[in-house]
């Protein structure tokens, strides 16, 4: 765990709409070391994907903007780079895996074409060399008979195979950072386990860092070194996988963990749910964003937004219950 591969400081990104600027990600700070896996968890609409799109600077193509903050990747500031410069980094040093592998592959190109493209752009390989490399990569991600598969079209492959192809495309140039945006959501559970194992093996082999975005606590517990929990565009708690699972401090994290069937509660009892829904971006509550749904909410929570409180070297949370006195009282 040596140098930092990625450091995000105070990142604010979102979309300009009729109602003004909507912060989909508000003041996000994250760090990722070499070879480490950071899971960003949270329910739909909590800003996980926006954060990942902002790192790739792809958010600008969907009409979003990065309003504030720094993204430093291997010592290079990404927020000030032009799209042309980003094009040299994307796919080469930072790669991305998408949620739905079927739609992330272009239906009119063969698998081989799509893997070869990245190699031809970033490593200047010829078509034949790239195709040879594509066959090797396909074998590497566990696709049987890769010489045949390279000539096939995405519709001839199953969902799990397509996700392996997407992973092969992402790994083509041996990136230092892999952003996986819910890579297993569209797959069934057995295939999911295979894909996660593949990712873990490849990570060990290439020594890359993974930023894994998921809403599945099970996936997070299996993959993560550290976990960041996001709610309504902010990080509410961050810590190692043990911090989060053994000592969840933020009421939202506690709620998430209690909502896993069979995790805390006995079989046959009613499943715990967090009351209410995530607020809309235009209608964020005052004070702590979670207070309308929080069982511990006080007057203070309604008025003031809590800052990050360091619970230990690795563990921080954004909840008023853990300011200094509260922490003493709790222990």
């Amino acid at each position, binding site marked *: 765990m040596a140098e930092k591969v990625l450091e995000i400081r105070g990142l604010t990104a979102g979309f300009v709409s009729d109602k003004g600027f909507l912060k989909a990600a508000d003041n996000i700070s994250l760090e990722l070391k070499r070879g480490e896996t950071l899971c960003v968890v949270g329910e739909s609409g909590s800003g996980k994907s926006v954060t990942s799109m902002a790192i790739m600077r792809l958010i600008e193509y969907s009409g979003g903007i990065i309003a504030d903050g720094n993204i430093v990747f291997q010592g290079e500031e990404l927020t000030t780079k032009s799209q042309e410069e980003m094009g040299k980094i994307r796919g080469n040093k930072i790669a991305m895996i998408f949620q739905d592998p079927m739609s992330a592959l272009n239906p*009119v190109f063969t698998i081989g074409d799509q893997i070869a493209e990245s190699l031809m752009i970033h490593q200047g390989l010829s078509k034949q060399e790239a195709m040879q490399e594509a066959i090797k990569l396909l074998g590497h991600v566990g696709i049987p008979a890769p010489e045949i598969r390279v000539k096939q079209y995405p519709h001839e492959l199953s969902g799990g195979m397509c996700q392996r192809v997407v992973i092969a495309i992402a790994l083509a140039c041996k990136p230092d950072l892999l952003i996986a945006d819910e890579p297993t959501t569209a797959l069934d559970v057995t295939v999911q386990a295979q894909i996660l194992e593949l990712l873990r093996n490849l990570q060990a082999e290439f020594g890359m860092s993974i930023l894994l975005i998921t809403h599945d606590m099970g996936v997070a517990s299996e993959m993560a070194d550290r976990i960041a929990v996001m709610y309504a565009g902010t990080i509410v708690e961050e810590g190692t996988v043990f911090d989060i699972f053994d000592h969840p401090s933020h009421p939202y994290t506690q709620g998430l963990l209690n909502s896993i069937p069979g995790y805390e509660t006995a079989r046959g009892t009613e499943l715990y749910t967090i009351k209410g829904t995530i607020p809309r971006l235009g209608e964020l509550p005052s004070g702590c964003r979670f207070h309308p749904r929080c069982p511990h909410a006080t007057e203070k929570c309604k008025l003031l937004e809590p800052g990050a409180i360091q619970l230990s070297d690795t563990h921080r949370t954004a909840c008023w219950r853990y300011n200094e006195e509260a922490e003493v009282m709790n222990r």
Partner: protein
Amino acid sequence: MSELIEQEKVSSDSQADLRKPPGPWKIAARKFVRNPYAMVSVFVLLFFIVVSFSAPYLTPYDPAKIDFSSTNLPAFSEGHLLGTDELGRDILTRILYSGRISLTIGFSVALASVIIGTVVGAISGYFGGWIDTVLMRFVDVMYSLPTLFLNILVLAIFGNEFIYMILILSFTSWMGVARLVRGNFLQLREMQYVEAARAIGVPNRSIIFNHLLRNSIHPIIVNATLMVGSAILSESALSYLGLGIQAPQTSWGLMLSNAQEFMLINKWLAVYPGVCILLVVLAVNFIGDGLQQALNPRGKKHPVRRLNEWRKKFSKSAA
């Protein structure tokens, strides 16, 4: 035959090749070949192309040579299969040479306007925003320009070269393709594979002209074919009005125009070029329809197969 043997050899070489389903183009080709209208049309069109472009080898006459010793000969007269016109020019020769010009104009106009339209539409649809607004308003302006007027203007200023005709027709007929391609791109650019392509650092121009164009190639091909027919018709119309091809060059439209004066003497003068235009345009349109059916995966069932099914059902219920 040797091809077939080779294919068999390849497939027996590896088990996997046997299992491999045909590619999308192969499926489309098979569908197209099974369409009788389209296939007959292909042969009709090929016949016209071959015959027109080998005209100098097929006929000993010069299409513009005036011979007053043999004017207005009827069809099947000696040496003149379709007879001669009022100036003693061999009609068959003139039909063949006209075909050259009409077909050249048809295909080059279709090609040029599809290229212009595709580029404009692709850029407009992909980038959207103000680029889209500017380009689409330009399309609206082009639509509102009267082609005929523009044609007269250019003829008056630059003279009546055959190439100007191609240019004018191309510049006034690309807008339909542009709108079609734009609509297609507006839809395609939201696809996740576009985002995925960006995520591996593919530059915009490559996304537009490689990734997305391949996805919208089907409607473009169909449109291009149909455009050939309409270009031949426009050429005929302009030439008929005396604004297109000028003597001594000749085209089907111009022949029609000349024939009009001599309708009462020899009505067949108008029939020959008219039938040629009809056949070629019909053939091109059938090919376009056939392509549309072949390339559209959700396409309707094949007409002949449907007829057969119906016949089977009918005979069953009768028995």
